[in-house]
């Protein structure tokens, strides 16, 4: 509160960054403890969470006022013009402070209160149970067991307490191996493929330098390959480019020497590091932010940014991983430098390709909880939750979501969730509104007592899962454990407009085909219900009449059906229930609902289509 000097500024203009006309919206800007709120003359509200603010900039004074540009982590860019420079300066300073909290307890999650009972809060946190998930995969079993080596975070601080390792890997081997791995992140199980009995394991780079060896580590890898009865060879995938790995050798780190390990096949995959990714996204955003972008500028910008090439590289690695397991029955050990960025990407995507469970809403939550949260992807550093080193920021998780989105685009029928689900998760990774993504590792989260002090995101998403359902989802698309084979040819990778332009109205198609199908589905369900109802009525009548059924009653029934289905038009439109409950009292970042509200008002086309369907069905 001490940072806020001005709470309300009137006559502020909001400019659209893509339309050249100067029809700006005028309204009032409010600054609250958690949000920046703009209410325009049409009473439309724009909420911006302080934690979402990535950068605030004050531009040179113009005749109409002082421009203030705010860049958000969810790729929203707002351009205000504040009439008085003094107000602008106050807001600017306040936002600078507010958007960079120093301590965890300043984060929104600690003050956010969705008015839930304590028992619900506890239940919410219990929704995703990783022990349950490992059981679903089929571990522990004869080859894999739960290790208590890291019970007290003694072996590795950034790993979770519960780790699964080969049964024959004794504790001394584990400890020895962890000493030979960067940050103590020794090889552990990430995913177990029940049918092939092969495993995805993950770790960090070995401290091999130019020649160092570690017998325990060699044993550890041997144990992993022995845990796979089908194939005694295993792959070791170093997800870094070879040059980077070689550079690391000089610092006493590096990669496995194939000669020292029995039965391994070593392979580099060539995904670039976090700094390359950060600047690549920066370049992409610069290009996509140009007004009236020509095709050629876009294509050359896209090529120069390299962003889609990086996305492709990540997905390629996941495909190689998944194929090694399905085609060759081989276990794979994945690592990068510290094993929390590229490794998380590749392991989770590989599992997503292998196991259709992760293509369901609940399964995707489990996947994120397992490969990202529990294995210590540094969400706090990468998303800049606290004021910290800007070089630690990198869109690694965004990249993962984009890979998943590309898969959903390639296989429209394979995923239970839709784009909105991915966007919502992305939103909350940065919002710091829920406890799930706070901090860098499990140990830190326990110290922060997140489970008592904050809420879990997942139950909220599940409650409104209707919004996140993919209407084209076909559960029979792939039977359990069949491999999803994406095509990673460059031309199959698309620019993710709905991510990078999610707040730029003019850039959006306003009526997606998906909405149409959703409507049709709803309509069909309603009609089925009506039919059942009517059938029941007919039966009752038949009984009453207790005689031969004449044609008369049926004919009288038919018209009623017709009128009924037309009446159903209203409640079936999407987004009429647009006010989101997830935010509790406020409706910050109501991105998707905004569109829905706006565009569901008068949609003759939808109605006409419904007429068409209704006519056909009646």
């Amino acid at each position, binding site marked *: 509160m001490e940072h806020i000097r001005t709470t309300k500024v009137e006559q502020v203009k909001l400019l*659209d960054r893509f*339309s*050249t*006309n100067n029809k700006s919206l005028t309204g009032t800007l409010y600054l609250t403890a958690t949000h920046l709120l703009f209410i325009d003359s049409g009473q439309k509200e724009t909420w911006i969470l302080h934690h979402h603010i990535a950068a605030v900039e004050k531009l040179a004074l113009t005749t109409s006022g002082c421009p203030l540009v705010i860049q958000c982590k969810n790729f929203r860019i707002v351009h205000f013009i504040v009439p008085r420079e003094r107000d602008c300066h106050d807001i600017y300073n306040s936002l600078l402070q507010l958007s960079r909290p120093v301590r965890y307890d300043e984060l929104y999650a600690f003050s956010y209160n969705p008015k839930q009972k304590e028992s619900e809060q506890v239940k919410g946190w219990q929704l995703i149970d990783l022990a349950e998930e490992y059981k679903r995969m089929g571990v522990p079993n004869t080859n894999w067991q739960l290790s208590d080596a890291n019970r007290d975070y003694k072996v590795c601080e950034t790993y979770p307490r519960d780790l699964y390792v080969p049964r024959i890997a004794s504790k001394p081997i584990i400890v020895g191996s962890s000493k030979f791995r*960067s940050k103590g992140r020794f090889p552990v199980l990430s995913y177990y493929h029940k049918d092939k009995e092969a495993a995805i394991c993950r770790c960090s780079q070995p401290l091999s330098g130019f020649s160092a060896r570690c017998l325990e580590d060699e044993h550890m890898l041997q144990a992993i390959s022995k845990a796979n009865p089908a194939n005694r060879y295993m792959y070791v995938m170093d997800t870094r480019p070879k040059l*980077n790995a070689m550079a*690391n050798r000089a610092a006493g780190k590096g990669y496995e020497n194939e000669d020292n390990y029995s039965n391994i096949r070593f392979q580099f995959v*060539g995904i670039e590091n*976090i700094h390359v990714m950060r600047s690549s996204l920066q370049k992409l955003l610069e290009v*996509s932010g140009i007004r*009236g*972008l*020509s*095709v*050629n*500028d876009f*294509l*050359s910008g*896209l*090529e120069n940014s390299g962003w889609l090439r990086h996305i*492709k590289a990540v997905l390629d*690695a996941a495909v190689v991983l998944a194929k090694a397991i399905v085609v060759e029955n081989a276990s794979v050990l994945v690592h990068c*430098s510290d094993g929390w*960025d590229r*490794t998380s990407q590749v392991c989770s995507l590989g599992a997503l390709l292998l196991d259709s469970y992760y293509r369901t809403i609940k399964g995707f939550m489990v996947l994120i909880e397992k490969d990202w949260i529990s294995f210590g992807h540094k969400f706090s550093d990468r998303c800049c939750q606290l004021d910290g*080193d800007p070089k*630690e920021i990198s869109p690694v998780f965004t990249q993962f979501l984009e890979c998943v989105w590309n898969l959903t685009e*390639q*296989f*429209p*029928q394979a995923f239970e969730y839709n784009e909105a689900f991915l966007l919502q998760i992305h939103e909350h990774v940065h919002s710091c509104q829920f406890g799930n993504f706070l901090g860098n590792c499990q140990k830190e989260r326990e110290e922060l007592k997140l489970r008592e002090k904050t809420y879990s995101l997942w139950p909220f998403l599940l409650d409104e899962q209707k919004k996140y359902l993919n209407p*084209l989802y*076909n559960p*029979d698309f*792939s039977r359990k454990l069949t491999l999803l*084979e*994406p*095509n990673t040819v*460059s*031309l199959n990778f698309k620019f993710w*407009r709905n991510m990078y332009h999610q707040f730029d*109205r*003019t850039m959006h*198609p*306003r*009526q997606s*085909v998906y909405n*149409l*199908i959703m409507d*049709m589905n709803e309509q*069909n369900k309603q009609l089925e219900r009506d039919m059942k109802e009517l059938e029941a009525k007919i039966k009752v009548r038949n009984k009453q009449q207790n005689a031969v059924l004449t044609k008369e009653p049926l004919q009288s029934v038919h018209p009623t059906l017709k009128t009924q289905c037309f009446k159903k038009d209203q409640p079936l439109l999407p987004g009429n229930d647009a006010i989101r409950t997830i935010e509790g009292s406020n409706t910050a970042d109501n991105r998707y609902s905004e569109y829905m509200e706006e*565009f569901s008002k008068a*949609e*003759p*086309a939808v*109605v*006409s*289509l419904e007429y068409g369907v209704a006519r056909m*069905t*009646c």
Partner: protein
Amino acid sequence: MLSKAAGGRPAKPSFVSYVSPEEIHIREPAGKEVNPYLLPGELLLCEASTVFKYVQEDGSNRGTYGKLVCTNFKVAFLGYESASDDNEPQFKNKVIGESDITLHCIDQIYGVYDEKKKSLYGQLKKYPEKLIIYSKDFRVFHFCLRCTKEEEVKRIVSGIVHHSQTPKLLKRLFLFSYASAAPNSPDAKNRTVMFDTFKDWHEELERTKGNVKYEVVSVNEGYRVSEKLPLYFVVPKSFLKSVTESILVHQGRGIPIWCWSCHNGAALLKMSAFPKEQDDSALQMPKLLDGIYKTIHAPPYEVLKMDDLSSSLPSLQDIQTAYTRFKQLFLIDNSIHFWDTDVKWFSLLESTNWLEIIRRCLKKSVEVVEQLERQTTNVLLIEENASDLCCVISSLVQVMMDSYCRTKFGFQSLIQKEWVIGGHSFLDRCNHLRKSDKEEAPVFLLFLDCVWQLVQQYPPAFEFTETYLTVLSDSLYIPIFSTFFFNSQHQKDTIVSGESHNAQSSPFRLLTVWDWSVQFEPKAQALLNNPLYAEKPKPDKSQRKTTRFKHHRQLSLPLTQTKSSPKRGFFREETDHLIKNILGKRISKLINSSEELHSNFREFYDSWHCKPVDFHGLLLPHIEGPEIKVWTQRYLRWIPEAQLLGGGTVAIATKFLDVMEEVQKLQKQMDEEHSQTAPEDADAVPTLRNSARLSSLFPFALLQRHSLKPVLPTSTWKDLEDEEDLAKRDDEFVELSGAD
């Protein structure tokens, strides 16, 4: 009778060989003679046996032996082993088989001599051991001739090169021999308006309510005025009275021809400009034209704005160059070639400039729409012959503004009106006769690609699917349809009357491409229709009244209409510009300062995009760079490396079809229940097609096995990248704690 084409359908590659062709002991298929299926009027010109056709050049040498034939219609490959009929493709062309290429569809022919690829043309001295044919619908055929007798190689290679590459006489087009040999089929009733009669034009005027200010004229009967102009066309009502006959001397140049009228009365017109060398008549022209334009500027006509397309859009030359480069990206010789292009895909795409040309056409069309719709001005498109970019822009404007043009018949009528009758030189632009490369330009394909952009941005707004557009683009090269094989209506009429005079028999009837049953069975035709399209709801009567009322009001008060005086001064000035322009002295940005135009346009564009879409109303495309996409179905359909098993847009489309089928089934059930004929257990599950595992190449290519693919494709592009210095890579090393 065409449906029997299946008999001659070349075999699918069922004979798979893993050894190189030479190693195979070829058994002469003595007992088994394969004969090509010939269409009426089709003649076998030459043939070669034991030709080896590769399944796809991926280095695996898989393929089949068969006979390669060349007729006056097509080049066809007939496999010795006939394919079993159980994997009959769902979507089959009745005229063109899977391994048939019509002579007009052949794009490039290459011969391979000692592993070197050379283009084949003219007289050949040496005959290649391998023949590669690129077709205009993006198929690539590889034939190995090593096992073929030398005599036959000579004959077939020179035959194919000769019949597909050398100039041809118009009368030698296959269409004439087909038409005279084919039994006269009863004229199928087609709802497509052909625009070859007075009545068609008149009805179009009435439909668009343009009949108030415009009229159909028949001055060109017998092509007295111009051979470029159609028999009947529409001009402003007072126009012909006001001009002297002298205007008619100029071959129809300078006549503003009506294309379409907007609901608010504003009209889209086109006009061919005078050639630039017309200096002798230049002196009297201004006076003449001044008179003409005074009449069409004055009320009741709206203010006229003109747009010289030659200055605001890329030239035909640019379009041709761009397309030549663009199509080369999709004519893939082998997998290695494919992976090479994949590495720098986006910059290759950029370097072709094709997508940018599409964007510029769409943008121009939106600008014209803005002038018609919001400013209520008449727009006059000017081009040298008014039959190339004029057709693109005017058709696109109509597709965007007139929902009738988004129905199948409406779209076909539009193509008849603007392109076929409108005088687009299909023969020259497609270079069907191989006469001159200079005239070649894929203008019609450009238009189809623009429409595709609209279709993929607003699928529910169109009655047809992208498959329809793809099939239509293929039909451009099938010479049994007359639609795309003439330069003008005049050319067609003269040659047809000449031919039937010679034949002395009943006048033969040329087929039009719009009769889709010639090419496809009804089941396949279903893929051309968009299941998501809903017909325009009938407007309320009250609504209709109001629009009519508006119209009447405009009518009744034409003279008092408030076109304020400054504007009059404005258009006077404009007339001067126009005249200069017509005289060929190019004036750069005319009329509005470009700045103003631009912001007007932007405002209109932005405000439209802020409102919900009415699929039966005005439709504006997104024209930001990222929104212009590659028409994957057309360009990538034969490339196995690009396929997605069980994925792609096809997955969505087939899902729709499934849902629609289900709906229809339910309806049938209800009907039956209603009429009480159905038994009680009517809860049969609808039989859904297995859409889950269709390839994204459906319905064109068959499901292919997985293509060989480098284990780690990433490494290939790595090598091509500039080697960054190690210092930069070291940042990983420097920042060990940070970099993961």
